[in-house]
């Protein structure tokens, strides 16, 4: 059973079937496809061995043998969680897009294509295939935001906004980044004669620090756009605000993770010396993300824009945590808590932010605007909805007992343990935590508490379909908050191996 190829092929096939199906059946076909795609995922859950730190379920498919290009698929603890996240969110998003009426065939077909390419990015261990999936992902995303997003319009200050603008911005930004990556990939291929990540690692680790740093930067910039790291982040609020709900969910839930995933998978594996040399810089940018994102979020009046900025802030914890891997002043004593918390935060952010965007979509469907100042008293109007809002927002602000806290707590524990400069990073991040709590609570107060608004009276509470999309996510959020051990057990061996290999081969040779 080639589970990993199945995970890619099923949505691809589904995308084709959607195109062939009649217009009204498109969503049903998409639902069945993403539902069927959960089956190999379930099988993966059974066959995956969390105690094994290495790549598992390796599949090799010949592609262009003359140039040693192949489809090389495998998973380890890191990509395993991301693949599960992708499958789960895609399935929920098809349900969330149930009422798409504009060209449903195109929409669902592109959506399934997106799902296939996202899984591809996470399971590819061949850099050529990785790059192909990485670029393939842009195509459906571009059309999904551009066509199904908000219509083009002029801002009060005379600037163009809307789906097409956001789509082009997103596309160009990512493309510039990925071209840098392509240069680096070709350089390495030229030097090593292989696209296989494992073989490339053998070569790259012997490179001098300077070469490593250059290649590291080329990859890093590509990923930094995706995270998105300050100051390359401004495509994100636009893309989110203009995109339809389900696309926002995928964008925040899965696509942002590809940035940090790529850094861990490629930069950490190929360029350990450069990784160690730049760790503080990445951590510092992480802290900037935390503070800057939180402050910008506080200034927003558009609920979706606020959530978008909160994503920038939360991805900062991932960057901070994954940089804190070696004790300050030592060359070989590793710290595991930070990176563990960072990667768990990737998963947590995926589930929590998905919930947040789904929730924003629910209110947008009813009110046709997302202006926080024009809301109020929704707790009375829509109590069940408000219940989910409470879980999602408190998870997002890091309330213990919900998953967001576990990730942040581990990041802070690990970062402090690392010592030195990192302690200042923790203190700065602590300020961010307070601001985060402030803007979340302020939003809840403005939109949900207070007296019921006249124009919002009679809004129906969350429908069964909407509840169905929220319940699995809420369950995961609470589960990790109460008992994170199962998830950490999946991540621990892989991350320990990654950290050890970085430190072992990255330490300056005497």
């Amino acid at each position: 059973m080639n589970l990993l190829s199945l995970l890619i092929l099923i949505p691809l096939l589904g995308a084709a079937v959607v195109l062939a199906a009649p217009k009204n059946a498109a969503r049903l076909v998409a639902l069945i496809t993403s539902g069927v795609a959960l089956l190999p995922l379930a099988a993966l859950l059974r066959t995956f061995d969390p105690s094994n730190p290495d790549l598992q379920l390796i599949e090799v498919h010949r592609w262009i043998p003359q140039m040693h290009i192949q489809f090389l698929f495998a998973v380890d603890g890191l990509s395993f969680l991301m693949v599960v996240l992708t499958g789960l969110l895609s399935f929920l998003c098809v349900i969330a897009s149930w009422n798409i009426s504009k060209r449903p065939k195109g929409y669902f077909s592109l959506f399934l294509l997106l799902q296939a390419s996202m899984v591809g990015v996470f399971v590819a261990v061949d850099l050529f295939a990785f790059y192909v999936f990485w670029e393939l992902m842009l195509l459906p995303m571009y059309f999904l935001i551009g066509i199904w997003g908000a219509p083009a319009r002029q801002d009060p200050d005379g600037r163009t906004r809307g789906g097409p603008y956001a789509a082009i911005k997103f596309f160009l930004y990512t493309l510039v980044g990925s071209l840098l990556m392509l240069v680096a990939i070709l350089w390495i291929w030229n030097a090593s004669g292989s696209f296989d990540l494992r073989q490339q690692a053998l070569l790259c680790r012997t490179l001098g620090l300077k070469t490593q740093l250059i290649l590291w930067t080329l990859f890093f910039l590509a990923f930094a756009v995706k995270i998105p790291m300050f100051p390359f982040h401004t495509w994100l609020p636009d893309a989110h605000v203009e995109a339809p709900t389900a696309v926002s969910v995928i964008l925040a839930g899965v696509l942002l993770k590809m940035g940090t995933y790529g850094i861990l998978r490629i930069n950490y594996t190929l360029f350990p010396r450069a990784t160690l040399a730049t760790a503080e810089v990445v951590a510092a940018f992480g802290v900037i993300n935390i503070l800057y994102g939180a402050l910008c979020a506080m200034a927003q009046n558009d609920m979706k824009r606020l959530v978008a900025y909160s994503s920038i802030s939360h991805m900062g914890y991932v960057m901070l945590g994954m940089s804190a891997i070696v004790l300050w002043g030592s060359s070989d004593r590793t710290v595991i808590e930070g990176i563990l918390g960072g990667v768990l935060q990737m998963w947590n952010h995926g589930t929590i932010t998905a919930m947040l965007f789904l929730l924003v979509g629910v209110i947008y469907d009813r009110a046709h605007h997302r202006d926080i100042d024009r809301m109020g008293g929704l707790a009375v109007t829509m109590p069940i909805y408000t219940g989910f809002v409470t879980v999602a927002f408190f998870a997002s602000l890091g309330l213990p007992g919900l998953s967001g806290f576990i990730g942040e707590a581990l990041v802070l524990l690990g970062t402090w343990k690392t010592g030195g400069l990192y302690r200042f990073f923790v203190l700065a991040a602590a300020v961010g935590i307070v601001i985060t709590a402030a803007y979340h609570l302020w939003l809840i107060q403005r939109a949900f508490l207070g007296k019921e608004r006249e124009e919002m009276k009679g809004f129906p509470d969350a429908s069964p379909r909407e509840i169905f999309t929220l319940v699995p996510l809420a369950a995961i959020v609470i589960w990790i908050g109460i008992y994170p051990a199962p998830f950490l057990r999946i991540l621990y061996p892989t991350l320990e191996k990654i950290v050890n290999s970085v430190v072992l081969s990255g330490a300056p040779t005497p």
Partner: protein
Amino acid sequence: MNSLALIIFAPLMMSLVQLFFGKRFRHLEKFTTAGGVGLAALLSIRNLASALHGHGAFPLAFSFSWFGFGGLRLGFHADNLAVPMLAMVSFVSLFVHIFSVGYMHGHPRYSRFFSYISFFTFAMLGLVASDNLLFFFICWELMGLCSYLLIGFYFEERTACLAAIKAFLTTRVGDVLFFIGIAALYGATGSLRFEEIARAATGGLIGQKALLFASLCILAGTIGKSAQFPLHGWLPDAMEGPSPVSALIHAATMVAAGIFLIARTAPFFPSAAMYAVIGVGSFTAFFAATMALVNRDFKKILAFSTISQLGYMLAGIGLGATAAGLHHLLSHAFFKALLFLGSGAVLHAVHTRNVDEMGGLAEKMPWTCATMYIGAFSLAGFPFLFSGFYSKDEIIGAALLFAAVSHRHAYLSPGILVAGKILSFLPFLLLLAAAGLTAFYTFRMMILVFHGEPRDRHRWEHAHEQPPTMIVPLVVLAFFSTAAFTFAFREPIETFFGSGTKESAVAAGAEVAHHFAMIASVIVGLGGIALAYAIYFFRKIPADFLMRNPQGRFLYDLFFRLYWTDEIYAGIARGAVALARRFGLFDRRGIDRIVDGTAPPLVSTSRFSGFIDLYVVDFFVNLTGDVTRALGRLARALQTGRIQDYALGAMIAVILLALWIGL
């Protein structure tokens, strides 16, 4: 599964049942959560009793590998500190539940209310019993959540929402620092368990600086949660919540969690951190009492008194008298819960919190009045008959002892020894003064509410005594606010909390200090009560005597406006929002302009290249075409199609060929 797990998780289970099914079983909702808490109360009191018979250590614990990596096992245990606390928390909570059945009757979110306070009870029980900093912190924050939800329970009111946010954010400042303290201890020891950290600290495995830093961070957590100066501003505002919530969360239990935290971590606090604890505690005890002197809000007076009493407890623990501090925590829990529930009963009757609109309620509400008097006497430290007297007196005694033996703390250079000696008397003086103020404001409040002419006839006429479900809890709590509490619990408190706190005191000196402190506090307390009666009951002294001169007027304003601390906080909040707006603008106008700004040059470059393409490159391309075409035209001119022309051409060619060969 042992009885400890049942104590902690029964309230949680019932809370969830209530939350999800409360509305379906309307007639049952009164009993579900009270049942869970009742079970917890029963079991924890049984635990207390059997622990007493077993003399001290009572092994009841469970733990598990929570993170799933490393060897770290986290869990819960019922140790000496926890056993009496568990009993107190569940017991007070049970009676608050019973009281609320009447108090919240008819509210549309009735079942939600019980779910929240039951969930809160779970969190507090979990906090008390957790054997590690992480679970402690989790429960600590969950209580913060409950506090937020319950302060904002009447969320239709804007003031309630703002108070809820203020409470959450203010405590969050302390909480974040607390967590950094946890991270510091974890970084130094690799453990989160209290026991192991204390062992590492006493074994000298943690650097003194790191330990001091971590201790101060933990103290910051306490300052936030227990509303100590300078993070005290949220507690008076928290009175927007329903009165039973004020009784349970903002008086008896949650705010005391900060004190409990210090008691838990005191074993590894370095002495410098202990001085900070004393300083914060004794200053707050006095500071908060001054603000209670002039306030007109029934519940806010009680809130300030809570802050002040928490200061006593903190000072007590800082002074090394952990048993005294926790003794006061327990006795305070009962009499303050009583006072708040009593205030709730009064509010329920007159629908206002302003004491200016009350008066003369004693004859309308005799039971409430009588039970609240017991609470008031206890709070004021009326000698011998009431529990508050004994516990507060122990702390004041410890403060005097601290001053008396302060040469032991002469770590300072000899030059400032004298200053140190004077400083060391400060806690005693502050606490003693605060005792006098407490007695005064308590009875000012009691007289304004229950005696004199009714100042609002209409409200007075509609006032009525409360039903038995609300009176019975008052009576029970009143019983435990008398000396009965002290005689029943002094022994266990000594047994459970007392270990190792008396060893530094010179026994004889301690005795003398205690007697002296007792006499002083009796005089001050009775003086305060007498003054209150003289001013407000007998009207021998005009109530506005302070206002007669500018200095007095200033003092009054200072107290009444809470030292302008709220204005300072509001300024900070406004500043943060303004800063955020700046950043938001910068993002759109600054960074995004740059990003968008890359487009026009790109477009003009492409226009330019388009121009080049059209007029330069294409010129050459076209030129090629033109040249070709011209050549073609030329060639076409030759292709005339007439045989004579071709023949002429051939002739010329032959001649030229011949010439070439011939030459």
